[in-house]
């Protein structure tokens, strides 16, 4: 499971991902489908814009009182018989989960889909302790069995097609029947495989969509029922949550239960949501641990512009409207947080001196669609531009700044620009492949790293205009 750290800069990763036609076709279908469905789901609520404003303000209020909220949450979870732990970073969080598992002699545990657990690379750390974590969300199971990484927040295995999943399940699930490639048959195989695990496994790990300070309530939003299985049937439950997930009072949950499903799966409401407060005698796990994770979040909180990123409720609406995500796919971002939100969250969590992560704010056309789609009004384009400035501050004089300087010089006088175009046309011959310039040399290489360029046309507008005048066709009647 990949964590936060991109292994390559975005332009390099995107170049290979963009060349995968299967991936591009899958992504186009998914993003278009969810995009249209989401507009219908959102359009049904007459006061959607007011809900967005309230959602943003509710998160901002929680963040402004974050230490009070967390202390209140800690007290109320403890009052309900739960345990609360604090983790400054990924290593501390992983160690806490491993210790709890070892304390119960557990060698296998079940997991609800949780991006936070992927962020801290929990599964690999547990493996090192001899503890096998089984993903129970269908897509996460597909990703885990194929030793792959998720490529979308909501539908992590969307880069896989049914034939690949058929081959995988026939090989890995040891099903006596040969499975067809029908999604219902494949989901049925996962159901049979996981059911025994749900009924017999002693410990589960989950994330948390929200936590409510005054009641000590933790919440998991899902569709399949694997989340309910994991938070209900085992004896021991551990939930890992980023500290920004806390809300003040029970009533605060309402606006998010309106905003999240419609933005995420484009449904009026997701099939299942579980809420629990500590432990309930005679119902569900009788031992509950809540791990509060910082891992860079307090640094984001300290930043005046970047702070709004912590409003994110992980709905993935911004991924589905982003033209860059649609072409490059989730893996190009190299982090568990892909798409526009990942392009601002990942570099902030890692700090802008991470050489690969600081290329992510460039992974955008700044079209603004992500801001319009965001249910909690995170101004993603504003943060992108701000972070690009931060990244440039780290770089000093860059190829981009030299190129922009040259362009400014050429375009400031018409004759200079025309001369430059003629020169370029003469020189472009060796660069054109299949009607596109896919790689520019030297200083301009940065431009074509993540975009193809149409070659200069054989005749410029200015040349055409002069020719037209000379032929006497220019005069108005």
């Amino acid at each position, binding site marked *: 499971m990949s964590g936060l750290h991109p292994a390559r800069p975005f332009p390099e990763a995107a170049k290979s991902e963009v060349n995968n036609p299967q991936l591009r076709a899958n992504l186009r279908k*998914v993003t278009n489908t969810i995009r249209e469905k989401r507009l219908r789901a959102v359009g049904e609520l007459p006061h959607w814009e007011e809900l967005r404003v309230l959602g943003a303000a509710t998160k901002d209020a929680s963040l402004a009182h974050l230490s009070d909220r967390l202390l209140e949450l800690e007290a109320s979870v403890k009052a309900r018989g739960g345990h609360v732990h604090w983790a400054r970073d990924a290593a501390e969080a992983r160690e806490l989960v491993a210790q709890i598992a070892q304390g119960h002699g557990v060698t296998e545990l079940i997991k609800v889909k949780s991006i936070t657990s992927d962020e801290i690379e929990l599964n690999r750390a547990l493996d090192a302790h001899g503890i096998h974590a089984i993903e129970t969300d269908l897509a996460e199971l597909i990703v885990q069995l194929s030793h792959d990484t998720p490529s979308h927040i909501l539908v992590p295995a969307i880069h896989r097609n049914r034939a690949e999943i058929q081959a995988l399940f026939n090989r890995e699930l040891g099903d006596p029947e040969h499975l067809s490639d029908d999604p219902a048959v494949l989901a049925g195989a996962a159901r049979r495989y996981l059911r025994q695990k749900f009924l017999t496994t002693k410990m589960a790990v989950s994330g948390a969509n929200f936590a409510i300070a005054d009641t000590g309530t933790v919440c998991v939003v899902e569709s399949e029922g694997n989340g309910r299985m994991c938070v209900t049937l085992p004896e021991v439950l551990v939930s890992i949550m980023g500290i920004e997930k806390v809300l003040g009072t029970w009533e605060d*949950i309402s606006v998010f239960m309106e905003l999240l499903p419609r933005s995420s799966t484009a449904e009026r409401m997701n099939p299942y949501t579980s809420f629990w407060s500590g432990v309930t005698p005679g119902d569900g796990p009788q031992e509950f641990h809540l791990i509060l994770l910082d891992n860079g979040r307090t640094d984001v909180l300290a930043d005046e512009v970047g702070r709004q990123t912590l409003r994110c409720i992980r709905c993935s609406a911004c991924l589905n409207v982003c033209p860059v995500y649609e072409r490059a796919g989730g893996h190009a971002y190299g982090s568990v947080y892909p798409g526009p939100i990942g392009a601002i969250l990942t570099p902030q969590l890692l700090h802008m001196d991470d050489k690969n992560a600081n290329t992510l704010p460039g992974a955008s056309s700044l079209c603004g669609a992500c801001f319009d789609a965001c249910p909690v009004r995170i101004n993603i384009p504003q943060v992108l531009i701000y972070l690009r400035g931060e990244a440039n501050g780290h770089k000093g004089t860059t190829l981009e700044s030299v190129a922009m300087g040259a362009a400014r010089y050429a375009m400031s006088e018409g004759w200079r620009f025309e001369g430059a175009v003629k020169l370029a046309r003469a020189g472009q011959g060796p660069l054109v492949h299949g009607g596109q310039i896919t790689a520019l040399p030297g200083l301009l290489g940065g431009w074509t790293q993540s975009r193809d360029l149409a070659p200069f046309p054989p005749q410029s507008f200015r040349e055409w205009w002069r020719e037209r005048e000379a032929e006497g066709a220019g005069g108005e009647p």
Partner: protein
Amino acid sequence: MSNAEARLEILTRINRAVRDRDVPERPAYPRAEGQSRADVLHTFEDRILDYRAGFVRVSPDGVREAVRAALGDARRVVVPDGLDPAWLPDGLDVRRDTPPLTHAQLDGVDSVVTSCAVAVARTGTIILDHGPGQGRRALTLVPDLHVCVIHAHQIVPDVLDGVHAVAGAVRAGRPLTWLSGGSATSDIELVRVEGVHGPRTLRVIVVDG
């Protein structure tokens, strides 16, 4: 102890980060125009059918027959304590959850019949607060068919109404389960498959009066 250290350090970082920040003003919760009771019930029915769950509306003396029809071929039924005995038809293999059934016993049951705490029309959501007549959480999770009997007066227009209705149960420490249709996934090529781990079938009976 390192956890106390981590706690202190995180709280210190937060307080340094948010020092001197103004607390933002929060706008009022936007509410839709008031709907008639008939509209609310109609919306709820529409949403339940949209989730491809079963829906039927009956008078109080029609509940038993409606439950029999909703159970179909299911014979082994688990019922929570506190469920109205008048709702249950004869001739079923009824299991009580007192003393609690084991996971394996529960897995051997076909269906469950429950009531609910409140239901939300706009989203077609049934909220269980696991009080009397609803059972512990596992009861409505493991069997493949869930028949839920709802009094018409328990159906409220909006999510916020539902949230208010169960505030007391949450403050008393009770867990909640929100159900909107049956278990579903769209993880393989975005094809919707109904019935993954939770009940494959949900049938809703609304009782007038």
